């Protein structure tokens, strides 16, 4: 795979989203069509439940 890196702004947004998800229970939204990162939300609309990644109690 030819890895395409994130630019600085994209990386900052993604890190903020991951930390907000882990520390503040903010849900990460992934795109309904292709699963790409869309943003974060505090309240999940019903129609987005399946595409909203809630805080996951993973090992890492």
């Amino acid at each position: 795979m030819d890895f395409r890196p994130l630019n600085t702004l994209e990386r900052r947004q993604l890190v903020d989203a991951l930390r907000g998800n882990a520390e503040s229970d903010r849900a990460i939204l992934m795109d309904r069509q292709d699963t790409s990162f869309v943003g974060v939300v505090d309240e999940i609309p019903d129609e987005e439940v399946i595409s909203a990644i809630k805080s996951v109690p993973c090992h890492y």
Partner: protein
Amino acid sequence: MGLLDSEAGKKRLLSIEIPIIERYNLDRDKDYQVKVQRVGGGLVLRYRLKPCHNVYELETRLTSAYPTVPPETRVLTPLKHCPHLLEGQTLCLWRQGSTRAASRWDPAKYTCIFALQAAWRWLACYEVWHETGDWPLPDAR
């Protein structure tokens, strides 16, 4: 409980897992839909995730002991060796010790799509690590 050969396992599949996979696939581009295949006494889910610019192929195995035993997810796309990656490119997601009590997987709360979402988050962390050398989230305590 066998996932495919017990009443409880079949009920779990038909009432919880299959409907949520169908819901996940609804409106999803065909390339990103979850495909389900029977393997032995369990199921294998194959799918793609694209947290950022890169597309990853994954599979999540629901063994015959699922959901008591958590699903196992591995990335088929070659990765650089990184933290939280086990042999065979299996993602270290649920295990915190070797006992069921210490596992972070809760079969009463989670489904196979929850496992897929956990894999998405892992891949997002991987994309950051790939560039910075730092895993963006601390180990869970």
